[in-house]
């Protein structure tokens, strides 16, 4: 287990280096943020001075080297917009995004797993068709549209949930459902197809041959096995989830990384972009790692 952990950490390094390199190159190509930082009447000398003070006049590889050295020490530079340490601004937002992501994951799981099992065990019935249909529909709706509809119907017209913002449990419900719908749809389809495959496995037949009840066959023998691939693929979905959060956060004025990011991108506040992308990547990798551990817990065939 320890070795597994160390190994995973070491594997992280190249991924993060490549990733920062990609983002850094993009930032570099994006041209310099000085134009946006200075008032319009700034003279070319002013521009050059600021560029120099920010190290923007160095060649690309030097800039990247400096960035990397600083980044290793946790310093992603100052936000141009906020004049503050970029990483600490991004870190402020992590709890909100995590809250949203976890809530929507929970929502998706609660909805999707039973639905998937249900439709797999009643294959080709009306219920199956209905569940499959709704999950396809769930994938086909852009989530900002869904979010606005939820606000109109459930927050403005019926006033069951608060419209926006973060705070109580009720606040997280609508954003979580909005964000979780596509994930739930995906997960339902996945659970269904896994269950169908597992139900055809020899060991399920063995269980049936023992004369145990349908419940044991479905939930003990099949579900646990079906869950294994679901876990890994759902982990791969985290990055989609965070992507969806960018949109969802905007709709619900949810003060998470997503909103910060979009604004930072628009303002070319690249220190923030770098820090946020880095953090998101870490988060995604971390969740994949958790999934890996879970995977290993669920499946005794895999050893540490």
């Amino acid at each position, binding site marked *: 287990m320890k070795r597994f952990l160390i190994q995973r950490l070491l594997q992280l390094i190249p991924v993060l280096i490549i990733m920062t390199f990609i983002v850094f190159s993009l930032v570099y190509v994006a041209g310099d943020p000085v134009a946006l930082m200075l008032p319009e009447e700034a003279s070319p000398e002013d521009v050059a001075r600021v560029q120099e003070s920010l190290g923007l006049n160095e060649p690309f590889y030097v800039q990247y080297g400096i960035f990397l050295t600083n980044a290793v020490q946790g310093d992603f530079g100052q936000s141009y917009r906020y004049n503050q340490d970029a990483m600490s601004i991004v870190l402020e937002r992590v709890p909100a995004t995590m809250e949203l992501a976890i809530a929507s994951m929970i929502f998706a799981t609660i909805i999707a797993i039973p639905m998937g099992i249900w439709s797999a065990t009643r*294959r080709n019935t009306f219920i199956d068709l209905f569940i499959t249909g709704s999950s396809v529909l769930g994938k086909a709706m852009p989530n900002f549209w869904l979010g606005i509809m939820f606000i109109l119907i459930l927050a403005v017209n019926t006033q069951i949930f608060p419209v926006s913002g973060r705070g109580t449990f009720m606040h997280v419900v609508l954003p979580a459902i909005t964000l979780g719908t596509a994930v739930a749809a995906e997960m339902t389809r996945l659970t269904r197809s896994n269950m169908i495959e597992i139900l*055809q*496995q*020899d*060991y*399920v*037949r*063995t*269980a*049936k*041959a*023992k*004369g*145990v*009840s*349908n419940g*044991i066959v479905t939930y*003990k*023998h099949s579900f*646990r*096995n079906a869950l*294994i691939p679901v876990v890994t693929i759902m982990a791969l979905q985290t990055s989609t989830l965070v992507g969806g959060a960018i949109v969802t956060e905007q709709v619900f004025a949810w003060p998470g990384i997503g909103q910060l990011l979009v604004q930072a991108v628009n303002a070319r506040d690249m220190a923030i972009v770098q820090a946020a992308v880095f953090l998101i990547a870490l988060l995604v990798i971390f969740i994949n790692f958790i999934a890996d551990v879970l995977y290993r817990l*669920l*499946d*005794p*065939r895999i050893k540490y």
Partner: protein
Amino acid sequence: MKDENQLLNVSNLQTHFFTENGTVPSVDGVSFQVNKGELVAIVGESGSGKSVTSLSIMGLVEDPGKIVGGDIMFEDKNLATYTNKQMRKIRGNDIAMIFQEPLTSLNPVFTIGNQLREAILQHQNVDKATAKKMSIDMLTQVGIPRADKVYNSFPHSLSGGMRQRVMIAMSLSCNPKLLIADEPTTALDVTIQAQILELMKDLVKKMDTAIILITHDLGVVAELVDRVIVMYAGQVVEQSDVFTLFKDPKHPYTKGLLDSTPKIQDLNEELISIKGTVPTPANMPEGCRFHPRCPHAMDHCISHEPQLETMENGREVRCWLFDEEVMEHERQKSGNEGTPQK
């Protein structure tokens, strides 16, 4: 006629699969009996309907398959009419089954003990501790060393032979009256196969369980069983005690099967083979199902389907060659027209 000794009587069993490409009559009128404590083999090439027959007995035919006709009398119950719920009491308790693939027939995520115990808890009124003791006993009986350790391990840490032993222990754990073993050794090495066959023989002797052994390895049949049922294309084509069958096979298919089996004793003969391949159930030939491959096929065979006829010592054969009338007719024809068709 109800025999005192009879345990299972399958008569005219028909199991069809209603697939998208039409109905597949995988089992098409199979009849046979099994007596208490008897070792019976069902042989036949791949796809001849052996597994489907056994699954029908277990009530485990999956959609889109269905038993569409015939009876499966087990003791005095007609299993063909049983619901899934009723079957659950029979399965694992009265009739147990061992599947072909020991590698995939055990659930990879639960311990051996967990899976073994399950059947005992399901059918016998005992607590967990007792069930555990019984399971470990059973494991010891099938010759697994350090059974209590194996009890807590996962299937993947066992070798193929051990897994198959676990499967056997599992199926015998409720003392079933009938054990169906569907190709229990095909996935194993010969040396391990020998161990398993030895073990099954011993256990049956000890527990007086009847066994239906499904295989297409005639060597295994010859080693183990009392009686042989030969299936071809969803039907029984011959049924006989094992000694007579090997000495004097009647049906041309049985003969072909015996001849094409390489024998370790005789050297250097050219092997005899049956030409062609087994027809798929979707493209069943008219008349005798074996006629396109049969070296003795006659005109009559092409258009008329033979029935399973009983011969001396309870043997049964499904072939026109043993119908006096037909043969008489054919002989006349060949007299008139020259040599009979090959």
